[in-house]
């Protein structure tokens, strides 16, 4: 996704790929690990914004977690938010600027642990915002600890023998939880482990933004994403794990649409 640059001179490398065609995605190197899904998801969000010609209306809310400096990669108005308060910040922005397109970009720690109250109540109020929820089942930024979405048996820095359902409880299915709320108007789970799934993810993100533009209310897209570093896998193994393990527990597809 990035244009290769000479690290000393900062000039484009001779053999670099063609420049980006997204206006909303800055042409800079990112800090994500090899095989991480964030780079793809950033690009999908930006492509959707460009295709809808809403870059000048968009206000993004960046989370605490691996995507904490997403504003270094996005070329539109962005604010940070305290950990998990992301939907509350987005609510405040949208209420005073209803004509802007407001979205949050949150990881599973931000949204499904520390910010559970904020996401449930933003959805329940039917806030006309869009949420991009990146579920990779670990806390990447802090060293691979267990997330609420960590699968049973999965080894993390804080579940060294694997997540025990008796000890640590069950992985949270946030989208299924939110879809019982009348305020949630659109909830779809997608993945970015293959070209086919990436295209589906793009369509879902586009749809979620369109829902907001039409004033339909709360829309959320959960993206199953790879974390090869803290899954202890190669990027290809991590992509395979999404298909073979993660998506069998977190089923892909539209959970709710109205």
């Amino acid at each position, binding site marked *: 996704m990035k244009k290769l640059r000479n690290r000393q001179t900062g000039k484009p490398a001779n053999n670099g790929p063609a420049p980006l065609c997204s206006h909303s995605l800055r042409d800079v190197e990112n800090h994500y690990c090899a095989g991480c899904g964030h780079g793809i998801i950033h690009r999908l969000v930006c492509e959707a914004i460009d295709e809808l010609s809403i870059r*000048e209306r968009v206000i993004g809310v960046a989370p605490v977690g691996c995507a904490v400096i997403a*504003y270094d990669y996005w070329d539109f*108005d962005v604010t940070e*938010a305290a950990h998990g308060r992301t939907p509350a*910040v987005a*609510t*405040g922005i949208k209420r*005073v600027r209803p004509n*802007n397109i407001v979205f949050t970009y949150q990881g599973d720690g931000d949204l499904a642990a520390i910010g559970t109250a904020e996401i449930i*109540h933003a959805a329940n109020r039917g806030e006309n915002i869009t949420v991009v929820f990146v579920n990779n089942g670990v806390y990447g930024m802090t060293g691979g600890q267990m997330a609420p979405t960590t699968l049973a048996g999965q080894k993390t820095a804080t579940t060294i023998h694997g997540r025990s359902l008796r000890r640590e409880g069950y992985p949270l299915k946030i989208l299924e939880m939110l879809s019982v709320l009348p305020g949630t108007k659109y909830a779809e789970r997608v993945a970015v482990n293959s070209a086919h799934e990436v295209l589906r993810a793009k369509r879902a993100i586009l749809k979620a933004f369109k829902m907001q533009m039409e004033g339909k209310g709360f829309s959320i897209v959960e993206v199953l994403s790879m974390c090869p570093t803290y899954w202890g896998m190669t990027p290809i193994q991590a992509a395979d794990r999404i298909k073979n393990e993660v998506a069998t527990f977190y089923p892909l597809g539209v959970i709710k649409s109205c």
Partner: protein
Amino acid sequence: MTKKLLMCGNEACGEGAILAGCKFYAGYPITPQNELTAYMAKRMYETGGSFIQAESELAAVNMVFGAAAAGARAMTSSSSPGVSLKQEGISYLAACEIPAVIVNMQRGGPGLGNIGPSQADYFQAVKGGGHGDYRLIVLAPASAQEMLDLTFLAFDLADKYRTPSFILGDGLLGQMMEPITIPSKLQPKEYQKPWALTGCKGRKPNILRSLLLGDGALEEHNKKLQLKFAAIKDAEVHCQCFNTKDADIIIVAYGSVARISKAAMEAARAKGIKVGLIRPITLWPFPEKIIEAAARTAKKFLVVEMSAGQMVEDVRLAVGDKAKVSFYGRMGGGVPDDKEILREIETLI
């Protein structure tokens, strides 16, 4: 035309916010500030602003963060235990330089405490409260009228300096009903907010952040914040002095207690005891120079608070060894009356 109304302090605070052009309020129920939340629910509806009863104090302050980040004048309020929850958001507001107003109608603590009036959150309001090096502009009203006037001022100061400002009241002030005068030509100042998130049409994108990972970047940001706080300290000290010139004993008290202390001062004067009163209106910046100057002539200071002794530390710093500083305090919802304070004065003679 000037309007006269009968209002409780909580409602007066809300009206001050409305007059200042507040367009967003988020709050959560807690006694003794519930009249303010209810008043904002009504007045936001009437004036076309947004009111949200948030799921928590954390959410409320972060909604205010969002609304203020988008350029609107925004406010949240609570009482002591709820304000503890807001500290995270307050630190972020200060760090991201987002102007907003936070109100604390203090109640007895620590813990859940009780719903009686208190001034035990002075340290929290004035010394930081949340994490990191920051200051809040802290205003301490002493009447329902000032709940209105100082809330109006708090919005101006917040916008002027791009920083959160804070109203430190107490349950007594919030509940007490008094006549309020609303001046006819009260117009809020308009501040340009080129930093606000409004969509990047026709300009470069705006980013609001407090995470600065670059080598030395956060230290530079902190230096910039400290310069701003220094400018506030130079320009925004507000204070009232009564009978301090010939006073042997000077009472220092703020908020409700300053009013009670004034009655004690007058009773002492009637008995021929030369007592004065210094009432800080801004608790930060603190009127340390005024207190220091008074300490050159007064022999003794008596600090009265509804706490175990918090502001007294700042008075001691200002007075130094120029005079003796005594303290009288009530805690846990206890309110001193003028006779108690007079007795304390008499023990100092």
